[in-house]
């Protein structure tokens, strides 16, 4: 199956007399050959097989973003406000995530280039480095919080911090052992499926379904507009829409080898991933809602939430909650460190693929492994103010999103690189709305910090 690139866009053409083929290409070609064969077949079973072959980056990015700090944000939200405004609000943030991430699928499928690579090449190193600094700081801080979640979650079972960190690193490194994108993706997908463990925990609390339905139907009860509410609004947005997701899904789309013919399936993958992740996130809010008014949720760690839930959901339910936190931290540490490695390889023009053997991709695997090891090591240093990191990480993600989205917007509207799959007007309208909402949320946070009294005035409007 040989397919041409989109007409009308500059081709990173390889002269046919000077073609270099690598093992990375062979592995990707095998994946694509299976997709090609599945596409030729007819019938429902064949379509289901094709979907199975093409899903991956969307589900991984969405469940990966249901990470340690995100789940702690949802738990703090449920334990602070119970069932109400934040249930539909979290569903809305996942809708925003679908709008944003769909653009990265199109961009990756049309250009076969990663996000960092495109920003550097299309807009130059000056803006490229700004994006990389945002990504690097955000990714490293988030990685630290993932290991905090793993440490706290396994701490519930009495596992000491050093052993918890070693378990997380061992799983992360073993996922890479196959040196095949396909195997890595499937292993990580299986691990990510455990994110749904929060749903049975929510069911064990015997939720007040009428209140859940009322919250979705009316967005009520509304919380008072104060500093806590604003912080949780920002934390919940940062729990679903962050810069690393843009870089990861586009690079994974490229590494998987998706083409413009696969965009429809990429959209399904993204939507399906967002639906699963939203169900798990809402599950956490419902699970912790019975704690509202009983605890101060401010600086709670995962283990403390699990312990607080034990009288309500029993030991099994509390253990499931703690295991969910462990899974959230481990899967996110895999996807976020991979996103850093992809971005480094793209910018440094080094080979960057999970299809590379270690010898072929030393810088790629070194960045991936060292980022994770450094973040894990920091978590083990006694006396560090790690609560500080947990507090700021989602907020920083929200603040860094508007500039990242502007680059994404410019790239998906670039006819020269996107050809026929450039963004339609409706997609631009939605993307513009997301930028405005994220910027407004950031400004609201600034107001709550600098002039908290102004919030009560705004609340009366």
């Amino acid at each position, binding site marked *: *199956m*040989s*397919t*041409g*690139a989109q007409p009308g866009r*500059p081709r*990173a*053409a*390889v002269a*046919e*007399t*000077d*073609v*270099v*083929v*690598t*093992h*990375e*290409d*062979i592995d*990707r*070609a095998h994946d694509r*050959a299976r997709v*090609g064969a599945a596409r030729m077949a007819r019938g429902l079973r064949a379509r289901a097989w094709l979907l199975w072959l093409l899903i991956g980056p969307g589900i991984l990015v969405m469940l990966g973003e249901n990470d340690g700090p995100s789940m702690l944000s949802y738990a703090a939200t449920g334990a602070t406000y119970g069932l109400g405004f934040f249930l539909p609000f979290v569903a809305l943030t996942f809708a925003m995530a679908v709008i944003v991430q769909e653009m990265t699928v199109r961009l990756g499928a049309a*250009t*076969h*280039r990663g996000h960092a*690579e*495109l920003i550097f*090449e*299309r*807009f*130059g190193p000056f*803006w490229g480095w*700004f994006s990389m600094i*945002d990504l690097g700081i955000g990714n490293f801080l988030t990685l630290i919080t993932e290991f905090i979640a793993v440490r706290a979650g396994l701490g519930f079972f009495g596992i000491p911090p050093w052993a918890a960190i070693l378990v997380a690193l061992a799983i992360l490194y073993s996922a890479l052992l196959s040196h095949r994108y396909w195997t890595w993706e499937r292993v990580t997908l299986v691990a990510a499926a455990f994110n749904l463990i929060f749903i049975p925990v929510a069911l064990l609390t015997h939720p007040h379904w009428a209140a859940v339905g009322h919250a979705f139907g009316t967005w009520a009860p509304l919380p008072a507009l104060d500093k806590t509410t604003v912080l949780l609004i920002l934390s919940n947005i940062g729990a679903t829409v962050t810069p690393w997701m843009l870089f990861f899904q586009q690079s994974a789309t490229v590494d998987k080898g998706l*083409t413009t013919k696969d965009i429809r399936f990429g959209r399904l993958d993204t939507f399906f991933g967002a639906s699963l992740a939203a169900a798990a996130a809402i599950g956490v809010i419902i699970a912790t809602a019975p704690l509202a008014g009983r605890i101060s949720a401010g600086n709670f760690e995962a283990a403390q939430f699990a312990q607080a839930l034990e009288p309500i959901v029993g030991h099994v339910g509390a253990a499931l909650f703690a295991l969910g936190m462990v899974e959230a931290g481990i899967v996110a540490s895999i996807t976020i460190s991979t996103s850093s490695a992809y971005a480094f390889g793209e910018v440094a023009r080094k*080979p960057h*693929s999970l299809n590379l053997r270690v010898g072929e991709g030393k810088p790629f695997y070194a960045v991936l492994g060292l980022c994770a090891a450094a973040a894990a090591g920091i978590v083990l240093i006694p006396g560090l*103010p790690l*609560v*500080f990191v947990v*507090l*700021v990480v989602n*907020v*920083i993600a929200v*603040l*860094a999103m*508007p*500039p990242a989205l*502007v680059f994404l917007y*410019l790239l998906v509207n*670039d006819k*020269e690189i996107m050809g026929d799959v450039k963004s339609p007007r409706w997609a631009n309208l939605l993307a513009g709305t997301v930028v405005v909402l994220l*910027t407004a949320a*950031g400004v609201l*946070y*600034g107001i709550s*910090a*600098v002039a908290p009294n102004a919030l009560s005035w705004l609340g009366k409007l």
Partner: protein
Amino acid sequence: MTPKHEYVSDADAGFVLSTLEPDQLAEAKRIAIPRRRLRGGELVLLWVLRIYVVFMLVIVLWQAWAATR
């Protein structure tokens, strides 16, 4: 077409070239996509957002520092 490859058989190379789009080859990514000049409005927007990020980051760090004390 004469594929150059050090450790790849001719059969594998032929399979790859008939299966992947030309831009999908790892080697193709060495060739840079042409630079695009940012327009005035785009530059202003990017600078405004950059200043916004730096300003807000200072507020966040100050808030978090105050919260942990």
